[in-house]
């Protein structure tokens, strides 16, 4: 395969966007199938490029002009994250009807996200990620300008922070290419910037951030696509940081802080989920919750943790696709989705979280307490999930954008995918982990049948297959009639839950007391500065002259 083919996963959606635009301008909407074709073509290209070789492929097309070259790189990490972005995006693009503008912007966003993932260096990732963020904002506002969306400033700050980290690497070590950055160049400040960028890009904060807020939009076409394309990118940065740091972050404190933050993020989502007033409100917290668990394990700095994190992220991608297509109404689709989301055994979510919690204990030292915390949060998710089964559905979604059977199929797939966790690990997660982190003997292994860690073996096939059969029989014999839809009180409300919102409101409403307004009159200040008054000019000149003599 010629290396130029590495452009295909980025170019194909771009071409699709071009074709959609051309047809759209001539008054013809190509329809979702053709729109999805661009994304599916990218998926296919990714598979065709990766599966035959299963080794890193690179492409360099010269300098772009801001200290970085157009270097593309397809390794196991890029493959894994590429699938996480492309598959759910392709699914929602294929099924949901969009006008041609939305479709074109959506496919462009997919191309940008894929560009960020295939980028060979930090700065190029920042450029492509920033583009994906811009397109996400445009996409969301194009759909409904009044509906909640991520703060543009936060996304821009994320990618600017990454750009800065990239240029620091360029200045210090002459390169910001992931594979070429010397370990010594990844200092604590540089990593702090990368981590900050990752956290902001994916909205990984304990309070309600954009991955939860976008699910409260009246229509979820754009929301699903944006979460599918943007949410994994923050994690991608945290994973790539391992590659630059030779498998670890510059200081162990970063592992501890980020892993703890992961628990706190999942806890925040769980607390909100257990107090949701509608099922949609619960589902809104699912992706942030899974993200919190993923952050907890990815940040541990152990091979097992990273593997668990990657599997969790794959699970998040599947849930994103599922939630994007799920209608706001009771029924088996919602039930199955809730079961999958909370990680009912032997689902993929269950296996991923079990391995994730195990990885915290095996990380040693105090990381085990993070695992205890993670388990406690998981229990809170169980409560929230159980409560959500009987909540009122929510505001309802346009029927044209929901596909309950597909949503249920995706959720059911994650439920029955528990036994396949070994396969996912060996084909998807472990190669990615091996690309960025040296593997100490015995830390993680296994194959299709089981996941082998230092202290335990999780016999995924042998244990989960019979359990799955028993589960199918048991649930098959059970009826769902007894589930009562009713408003359900939250188990608890955090006393400081509304504090942030109250503070924000107070700041927004803050104004200078009347009697002090004459002291700092902004209009007068503006008039003085912008009035073109010679006296001000003279004073400025004197100030400058004074300054240069210091």
């Amino acid at each position, binding site marked *: 395969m010629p290396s130029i083919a590495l452009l295909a996963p980025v170019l194909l959606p771009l071409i699709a966007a071009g074709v959609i635009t051309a047809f759209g301008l001539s008054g013809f909407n190509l329809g979702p199938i053709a729109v999805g074709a661009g994304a599916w073509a990218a998926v296919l290209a990714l598979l065709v490029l990766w599966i035959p070789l299963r080794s890193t492929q690179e492409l360099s097309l010269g300098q772009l002009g801001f200290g970085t070259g157009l270097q593309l790189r397809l390794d196991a990490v890029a493959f894994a994250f590429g699938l996480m972005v492309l598959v759910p995006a392709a699914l929602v693009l294929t099924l949901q009807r969009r006008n041609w503008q939305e479709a074109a912007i959506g496919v462009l966003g997919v191309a940008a996200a894929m560009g960020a993932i295939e980028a060979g260096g930090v700065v190029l990732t920042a450029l492509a990620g920033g583009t994906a*963020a811009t397109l996400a904002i445009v996409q969301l506002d194009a759909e409904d300008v009044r509906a909640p969306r991520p703060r543009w400033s936060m996304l821009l700050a994320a990618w600017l922070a990454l750009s800065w980290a990239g240029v*620091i690497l360029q200045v210090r070590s002459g390169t910001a290419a992931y594979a070429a950055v010397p370990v010594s160049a990844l200092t604590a400040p540089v990593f702090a910037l990368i981590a900050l960028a990752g956290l902001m890009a994916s909205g990984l904060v304990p309070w309600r951030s954009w991955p939860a807020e976008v699910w409260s939009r009246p229509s979820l076409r754009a929301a699903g696509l944006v979460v599918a394309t943007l949410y994994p990118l923050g994690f991608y940065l945290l994973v790539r940081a391992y590659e630059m740091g030779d498998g670890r972050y510059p200081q162990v404190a970063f592992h501890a802080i980020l892993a703890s933050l992961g628990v706190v993020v999942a806890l925040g989502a769980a607390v909100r989920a257990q107090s949701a007033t509608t099922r949609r409100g619960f589902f809104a917290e699912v992706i942030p919750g899974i993200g919190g668990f993923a952050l907890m394990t990815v940040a541990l700095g152990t091979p097992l943790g990273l593997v668990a994190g990657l599997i969790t992220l794959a699970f998040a991608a599947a849930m994103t696709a599922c939630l994007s297509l799920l209608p706001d109404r009771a029924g088996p689709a919602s039930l199955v989705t809730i079961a999958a989301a909370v990680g009912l055994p032997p689902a993929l979510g269950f296996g991923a979280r079990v391995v994730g919690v195990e990885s915290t204990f095996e990380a040693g030292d105090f990381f085990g307490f993070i695992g205890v915390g993670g388990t406690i949060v998981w229990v809170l998710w169980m409560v929230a999930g159980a409560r959500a089964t009987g909540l009122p559905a929510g505001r309802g979604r346009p029927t044209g954008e929901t596909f309950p059977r597909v949503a249920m199929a995706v959720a059911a797939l994650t439920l029955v995918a528990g036994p396949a966790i070994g396969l996912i690990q060996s084909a998807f997660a472990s190669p990615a982990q091996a690309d960025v982190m040296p593997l100490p003997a015995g830390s993680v292994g296994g194959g299709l049948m089981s996941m082998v860690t230092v202290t335990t073996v999780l016999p995924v096939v042998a244990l989960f297959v019979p359990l799955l059969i028993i589960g199918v029989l048991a649930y098959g014999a059970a009826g769902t009639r007894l589930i009562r839809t009713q408003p359900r009180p939250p188990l608890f409300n955090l006393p400081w839950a509304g504090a942030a919102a109250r503070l924000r409101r107070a700041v927004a409403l803050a104004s200078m007391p009347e009697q002090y307004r004459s002291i700092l009159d902004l209009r007068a200040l503006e008039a003085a500065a912008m009035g073109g008054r010679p006296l001000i000019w003279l004073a400025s000149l004197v100030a400058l002259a004074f300054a*240069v003599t210091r």
Partner: protein
Amino acid sequence: MEPELLLAAAAALGLAVVFTPLRVPRASLLTWGLLGLAGMAAIVIAPSLDLVILILLVLAVLQARLTSNREFVTRLRAPVLAIALLALGLAFERMQGPVVLDRFGAVGIVAGLVAAIGLLPYVHEFDPDESVVASPIPWMAFIGPPLAATVLLQANQVIPSDAGDAFGAMLIGLGLLNMIGGSLGSWRTENDASAWRYSFMADWGLAMCGFGLAIADGRSAALLMLFSIVLGRLPLYLWSRQALREKVPTDRPINLVVAAVLAGSAPFAGFPARVLLLRGATQLYWPLALVLAAGMLLWLPSSLRLGRSMGVPRGRQAVGVAIVLALNVLLGVYPQPLLTLAGL
């Protein structure tokens, strides 16, 4: 760098003339634009700073004679101040004396340049209802970029290294002042046309910081910033005038895309400019990069406002906006040819 900026200005004039609404008389726009271009060409090819200053005087007088609500004398003040400061600065640089004299010379040149462009604190008086050609906007967005590039290039030859630090520091200081003042002003001011004017200042702030860094990355950043002013902000401002009069904010996707261009979001030209600026600042003094990075976030609120104030471009304007967007994407993703052309 100057010829490239001249070409950009010519391209901007072409865009403005071709894609301006039919009701606007193109002939006069073209006439005055070409006159400005001729002046800029003269500035660019002028062998000495003295000639540049003299040409500037001619341009100032010519523009001041255009019909406007503002008085002739009032409109001349800032450009003449600029010329006087530049001349005094140059004179100080040419005299033999203590180092402080060279620094004062640098003050004169920097302050003169800032006054010529109309940046903080030497802001030209602005009437939002004034025609664009007679307003201070051409100084900022049309004549300013090639002028700044030329003046700074020539100034580097006359300013001794002893005063070079002060020269760079002043550029950066005034750049930060404009960056913050411009972006905040653009966000908070009541009048939309004034908001556009402030936004030019903010962009200029970044460009001045780039020039002040006095390294290749800084100059590259400045060049890209100036290109985004000439080939992005200026045409968009021209095409927003009708909507500004109608005062109908719109929230269409195109308004957001325009906001992204103005905010310097990826993949538009402002983004690599910012990356290069951060890179330059990191090489020089990293806390400056921190301040710059924080300041760069101030662009967003104002850009959203300006994007919404543009209305929905239709017909020829829509084509023009599309071309501007394409140019900005090209510069944002692949600025290397431009930088190579500029010898950076």
